[in-house]
């Protein structure tokens, strides 16, 4: 029998028992849909997270104190050195604290970040109104503040807050600027933060003090001149700091590149995608077992047909192919329907919110292809055993079967 004829015969046989074939098909459809949808959600989440991080700028290094170590404003300044660190473009130290902000009768809690003027460029920030923190503000420890979009809305609703005053820990800060809203939930957004001069933050908010009297910072953002020089810049920055900290053994700081953060994160989330795929794959496996069940019943029911076909000259291979074709038609049919349904589901839930979680999905043809191949494989795998049983029947016994 030709392949086309075998497939045709398989479809006719399956059509003879539509309900049963439909139910077996459903198992595969659900499995494939689950695989595609879950993997798309996983991929979408990955893309969302890396997107946020990439938005922060990939040409950034973060220098953080480690162990007993401390970083200071002096360290931050020293990192911009055309001789020892030529690949560093700028450094933007920051001090972080948490405070309650009050304006009139409105108040809110926000992360307060002490920064220098370089911070604006280093973190890719945009101003919606007013100005950013300038060098004189830092030098004079001025009590001025730049508000994130959400904070401004909570304190001043829709009014332009520039020129207004905000109380932070009982001191009045003059609002000099408003940041452009970054939108989207997620971590690291500046919408819920406020910025003040780093010296002000240090002396007014931070409890930390250094032995030298220098201003301690919690993190230094280092902007790299060229993304290709990122490894070299890590070496240079580390070299400068080791010199300043007189380090001979272990570093009292760490330098992390934005790129490595993304890579680590992608590794983690890719594992998540694979894991989700495997969990959904279990339902595909259950669908495959459903096919095997149906095929075993079908072989028993059609023993006489097998006998007739063998009497007419069907070889083992012919019978084997016939039943394998039926199982494969079921699984590939289910796979195609499932891929279609998965595509539709992926688009339908994209951007929808369930509870507090917003779904971001990313359909990929690879997932559809993978799910199809796996379902075809499952059809073959679970179809072969019943088919072998059918092909081994002896024609005389099969013809006598009632």
């Amino acid at each position: 029998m030709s392949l086309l004829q075998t497939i045709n015969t398989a479809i006719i046989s399956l059509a003879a028992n539509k309900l049963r074939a439909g139910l077996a098909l459903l198992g595969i459809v659900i499995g494939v849909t689950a695989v595609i949808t879950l993997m798309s959600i996983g991929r979408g989440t990955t893309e969302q997270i890396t997107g946020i991080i990439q938005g922060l700028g990939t040409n950034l290094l973060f220098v953080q104190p480690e162990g007993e170590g401390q970083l200071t404003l002096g360290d931050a300044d020293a990192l911009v050195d055309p001789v020892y660190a030529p690949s560093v473009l700028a450094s933007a130290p920051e001090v972080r604290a948490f405070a309650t902000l009050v304006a009139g009768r409105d108040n809110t809690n926000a992360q307060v970040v002490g920064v220098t003027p370089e911070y604006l460029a280093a973190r890719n920030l945009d101003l919606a109104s007013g100005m950013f923190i300038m060098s004189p503000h830092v030098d004079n420890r001025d009590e001025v503040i730049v508000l994130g979009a959400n904070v401004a809305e909570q304190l001043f609703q829709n009014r332009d807050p520039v020129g207004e005053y905000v109380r932070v820990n009982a001191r009045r800060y003059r609002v000099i600027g408003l940041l452009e809203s970054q939108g989207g939930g997620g971590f690291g957004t500046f919408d819920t933060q406020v910025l003040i001069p780093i010296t002000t933050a240090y002396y007014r908010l931070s409890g930390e003090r250094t032995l030298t009297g220098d201003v301690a910072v919690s993190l230094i953002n280092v902007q790299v001149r060229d993304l290709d020089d990122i490894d070299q810049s890590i070496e240079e920055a580390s070299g400068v700091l080791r010199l300043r900290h007189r380090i001979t053994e272990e570093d009292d700081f760490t330098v992390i590149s934005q790129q490595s953060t993304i890579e680590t994160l992608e590794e983690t989330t890719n594992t998540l995608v694979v894991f989700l795929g495997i969990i959904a794959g279990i339902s595909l496996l259950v669908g495959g077992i459903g096919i095997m069940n149906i095929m075993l019943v079908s072989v028993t029911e059609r023993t006489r047909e097998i006998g007739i076909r063998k009497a007419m000259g069907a070889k083992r291979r012919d019978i084997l192919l016939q039943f394998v074709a039926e199982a494969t038609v079921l699984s590939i049919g289910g796979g195609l329907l499932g891929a279609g349904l998965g595509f539709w589901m992926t688009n339908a839930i994209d951007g929808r919110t369930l509870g507090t979680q917003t779904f971001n999905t990313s359909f990929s043809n690879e997932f559809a292809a993978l799910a199809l191949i796996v379902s075809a494989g499952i059809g073959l795998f679970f179809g072969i055993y019943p088919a072998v049983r059918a092909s081994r029947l002896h024609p005389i016994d099969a013809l006598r079967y009632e």
Partner: protein
Amino acid sequence: MTENQDNVIELHDVTKVYRMGEIEVNALAGVSLTIRRGELTAIMGPSGSGKSTIMNIIGCLDVPTSGKYILDGEDVGMLSDDRLAGIRNRKVGFVFQTYNLLPRLSALTNVELPLQYGKGGGRKDRSFEALSKVGLADRVHHKPVELSGGQQQRVGIARALVKDPAILLADEPTGNLDTASSQEIMWIIQELNRQSGITVVIVTHEHDIAAHAARVVTMLDGKVLDDTRQEPVLVPEPGII
């Protein structure tokens, strides 16, 4: 024991032993039988006489335990299952007591079945031709349930004929039919034998049916008891086919 082109079936001292648990059953205890091309032979005998076994061996559904079987000039005594399937496909046309049509398929597709497992094209034409020979040209698209018993058996005969087999092997072909339909089927079988010269072997326990054959082989206890040539009773042409 020379091979004779006139002989379609040559059984030489064929035995068949079945094991049923501990007991060995000698279904055939040395049968030698030669059937010439164009003969219409009836094989008779009570249950347990070995007539089913000899039919299975003649039809290549089973192989002898010992002895030699030459079908249409080919030694088929000890072939593998798949080789036997090929022989059945090319050389044997089966007609069963219970018709054994596939219920989901139309008469035409049922007749096409042996063609699916062999080489060659023009399947639709060939099966239509076979159905025309048994007078069912106007019923080709009917499913078995839409046909009478006699008509179903005629589809069975068409299916057996479609590959131009060396022998037509009919196992109680009228066993499930009323007298009128039985006459109709026997008339067709006789006509095919007389007009087209097809070799026919009918296995039956009915003397009325055996009377239409030119030769009657009677089996008992796994042996040929009697082998008689006779003047066959001609079936009158039925009024309507």
